[in-house]
Every structure is written in C-alpha cells, then in structure tokens.
C-alpha cells in the first residue's frame, strides 16, 4: 500500500467520522444554499423535527420541500442573514409544522442559531441553521404559569370571601352586643313593674279584710298571683344573668384546684342526691388544677351535676360519674349519667337559649347556655354524647 493510498484512507476515515458526528449531533443541523435556500445538508435531528426524511428534502429549496414552514417569517430572516452576513439567534420561538404523524404537537418551540457560512472568497453563500426543540419544557412552563394564575385567582377569591366573612363576623358581633344590651335593658325594664306587682300583692294582703282573704277562691287566687310573680322573677333574673355574661366580663381566670370545687357542689346537692336515691362517684385527682374563674367553674360543675340529677330515669337508680384528667389539650372533665338521655335532634338544641327539653322538672333553659358561653369565652369546649333512655355524658375541656 502506497503512502498516497494510506493518506487517502486516513482522510476518508476522518471524513466519515465527521459525517457521523454531523449526522448524530444532539441538535438539528442543516445547511442551506443560495437565495432559495436549497437544503444541502440535514442531520438526523432535523429529520425528526421536520417529520420528514432527508431523502424527501435534500437538494430542494427549503420552503418548497417543507411548505408548512413557509409564511412564518423565516424567508425574510434567512434573506437578511445572507445579505448582512450577521448571525441571528432566536430563543424559544414557536413554529408550526405538519407533523401529526410523528406524534409531536404541530406547534413546537425552538431555539435557533442562523450562522452565515463564508466560501473561499469570503462571500456568504450558505447558512448553517442549528436548533434544538424545547417544546416540552415550554409547555410545562406554560402549564405551571397557567396553574399559578389560576391559583392567584383562587387566592384573590379566597381573600374576598375572607373579607366578606370578617364583615359578617363583625356584623354578628355587633348584633350580639345589641342583643345583649337589649336583653339587659328588657330584663331591667321588666323588673320595675313585676316588683310593683309584688308590692301590690303585699299591699292587698294588708288591705283586704281577713274574712275576704280566707275565702277559698280569693286565697287561691292570691296564691296563684304570688306563684306567677315568683316565676316571672326567676325568668327575669336569669335573663339578667345571661346579659351579665357579656356586660360584666367572665371573671378573671386563676389556677383553681378542681377536686374541692366538685366536692363543694356535691355537698350542696347532697340532700337532693339522697332524696333521689342517686349515687355519685367522683374521680378527680387531688391537686389537678384548671385555669378558670372560680365562681364560673363552680356554676358549670353545679349546672352539669344538677342536670344529671334532674334528668334521671325514673325506672332505675341514678348513677352519676364525675371524672377529670389532664390531657394535651387541657384538663378534661366528664360528667356521665344513666338518665333519660337525648335524641340527636335534642342534642343539637341543647345549648340554645331557653331550650327546655323536658317539662316535668323546673327549669328555664338558660343553665347550659350560660355554661357553654362561660367555657367558650375562656377558650374551652363543651360537648355532649347521649343515647335516649341510656344516659348522657358531658365533656368539658378547660384550656391549658
């Protein structure tokens, strides 16, 4: 083998290597010649992007071989590059190509470099076009942007809704204050006449001759009048209590040892408990402390225990169970009974003002309402679990 042959073989090998590099370059590369932009070279990536084989396009003017690429401004751009000899770079420009058969979207996004190529006479007669497709990234980014806009819109909506809620809340608070003021004023204004009626009854008793007062009907009517006045006054006093909840704060909180409070209430209720033949079990750890207004705490425990006693089932011995334990959420106090119990509908009404679920016992329906307000004003919660004719459990959580 001569030197010449070996040199030729080497040249051919290098040529082939370059050709392979060109063909398999990770970007699309084409070379366009002359004013009609004849496709002189096109590598594999270009074939993929165009959706056409090299054989289909090679040697033909670009906009004739790939007519769908025409009319998108590239004719003018390429002419400009040829004339000026200046390279042009485009970032992520959209180009529409008919390539549905490739499974790619017709509109693709491309970053393209148009590089003028000079011949041995330094004349620009050809253009190398190199480009990469970033359709997937652009579409993904657009999707993110769309989502972002959607989120911003939702956010705006939420803010608006929030403002509306705040306004409704403020309105409700005002209404509540108005209502409390009304209740206070009403109870106060009702007190004056009922007090007078009470005095009138007393004056009548002093005025009416004894013989008249001893008449059976008169005596009964006077008794009824007394009872009615007493009943009226209880209601008014309780109305006043309700209004004082709001007007006169809930009392300062302080650490209160729970066990003595329960014991105190138990002693108060002992005559009633004994009379009812009820059994009260207390399981409150000594030294367990809750942070609450002492007077309010006592009235809550009293209310729950006296309710448990009041609403006992007539056909079985009443069992009442008071437990308390510290938890992560605060001190939890439960008052459980085996009494009349309540349906779900009744449980929903339970904490309302003037709700009386039973008529066989005395009550005005403000006790639980007041207890709930006291507990919630102090940041605690009260919940009820009940089964008709099986029993009721109240669970109070005192805040830490």
């Amino acid at each position, binding site marked *: 083998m001569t030197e010449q042959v070996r040199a030729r073989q080497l040249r051919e090998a290098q040529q082939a290597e370059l050709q392979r590099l060109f063909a398999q370059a990770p970007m699309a590369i084409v070379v366009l010649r002359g004013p009609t932009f004849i496709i002189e070279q096109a590598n594999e990536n270009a074939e993929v992007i165009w959706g056409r084989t090299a054989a289909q396009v090679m040697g033909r003017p670009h906009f004739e071989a790939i007519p769908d690429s025409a009319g998108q401004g590239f004719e003018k751009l390429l002419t400009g590059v040829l004339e000026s000899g200046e390279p042009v770079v485009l970032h992520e420009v959209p180009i529409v190509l008919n390539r549905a058969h490739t499974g790619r979207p017709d509109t693709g996004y491309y970053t393209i470099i148009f590089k003028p190529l000079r011949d041995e006479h330094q004349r620009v007669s050809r253009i190398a076009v190199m480009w990469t497709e970033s359709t997937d990234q652009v579409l993904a980014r657009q999707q993110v942007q769309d989502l972002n806009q959607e989120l911003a819109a939702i956010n705006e909506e939420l803010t608006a809704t929030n403002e509306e809620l705040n306004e409704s809340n403020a309105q409700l608070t005002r209404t509540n204050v108005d209502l409390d003021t009304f209740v206070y004023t009403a109870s*106060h204004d009702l*007190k004056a006449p009922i*007090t007078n009626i009470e*005095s*009138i009854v*007393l*004056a009548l008793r002093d005025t009416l001759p004894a013989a008249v007062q001893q008449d059976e009907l008169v005596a009964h009517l006077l008794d009824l009048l007394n009872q009615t006045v007493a009943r009226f006054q209880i209601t008014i006093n309780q109305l006043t209590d309700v209004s004082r909840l709001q007007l006169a704060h809930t009392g300062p909180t302080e650490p209160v040892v729970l066990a003595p409070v329960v014991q105190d209430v138990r002693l108060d209720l002992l005559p009633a408990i004994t009379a009812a033949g009820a059994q009260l079990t207390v399981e409150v750890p000594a030294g367990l402390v809750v942070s609450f207004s002492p007077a309010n705490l006592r009235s809550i425990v009293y209310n729950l225990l006296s309710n448990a006693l009041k609403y006992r089932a007539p056909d079985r011995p009443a069992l009442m169970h008071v437990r308390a334990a510290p938890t992560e959420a605060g001190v939890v106090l439960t008052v459980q009974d085996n009494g009349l119990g309540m349906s779900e509908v009744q449980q929903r009404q339970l904490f309302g003002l003037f709700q009386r679920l039973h008529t066989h016992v005395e009550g005005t329906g403000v006790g639980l309402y007041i207890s709930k307000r006291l507990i919630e004003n102090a940041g605690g919660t009260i919940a009820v679990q009940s089964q008709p004719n099986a029993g009721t459990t109240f669970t109070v959580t005192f805040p830490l």
Partner: protein
Amino acid sequence: MLPLPSVLLVDDDPTTNFLNKLLLTRMGVTQQVLVAENGEQALRTLTQVCQASEHSTCPRLILLDMNMPVLNGLGFLEAYAQLLLAHQQPIVIVMLTTSLHPADLARAEQLPIAGFLNKPLTQEKVTALWQQHFAQQYP
C-alpha cells in the same frame, strides 16, 4: 319604735312611690312621707325643707332609686355631697333599686350612702332598716 319625723322617697315610678308611701304610713314608722320623682326634685325638696328655720320636716331617711330621668341616683348623690346641709344634719341615704350593675355599685361605694336594698320594699326590710339606723334615736 318611735316614728321618724320625715322620710323622702325618690323614684320616677309613681306606682312604686304610692306603694312605698302606703307601706311606710301603714307601718307608722314615719310622720311624713315626702316624694320626689327624680334627683333634681329631691335636691329642691331638701333645700326647701331642710334650710327652713323649722327642721321638723327635713327627712331623716332618703330611699333613693338608681335609674331616673333628669338626675339619676348617682347624680343626686354627687350633688348632695356638695350641699352644705349634708354637714349640718346627717341624713341616712339608702339605695332602693331593682338591679345593680357592678360598675354602678363600685361608683356608689365612693358616695355617702348607708346601704343598698333590693326592691320591693317590704315590712321586713323596713323593720330591719329602722333597727339598724334609728334604734338609738327613735327607740
């Protein structure tokens, strides 16, 4: 128990005044019952009957309501504290009210009053009041 020479009732409710006057008269605990329908009327009455040379009708006791038009109970007490006659002739003032707002209560504690009574006025309350304040003067 000797009757007081005079008692002043201050209340804007005519029915209350009528009933209280009836009660005090019937019990015979006072010779005279004066009535004023608000604090300002009460001040005028006091100025008239207590400045006169003859002091027999000047009340020894005032039963004072809290809520009244023109001048309420607290306003009356403040004005009364400024009156010169307060120093010359001590008058027992008892607030007779339906309900006591804690704020009012706190304010009234600063004022020259002998005590509080809840309405309605009854024989028992009157008897206790007389025993507490007038047992020595009018035994």
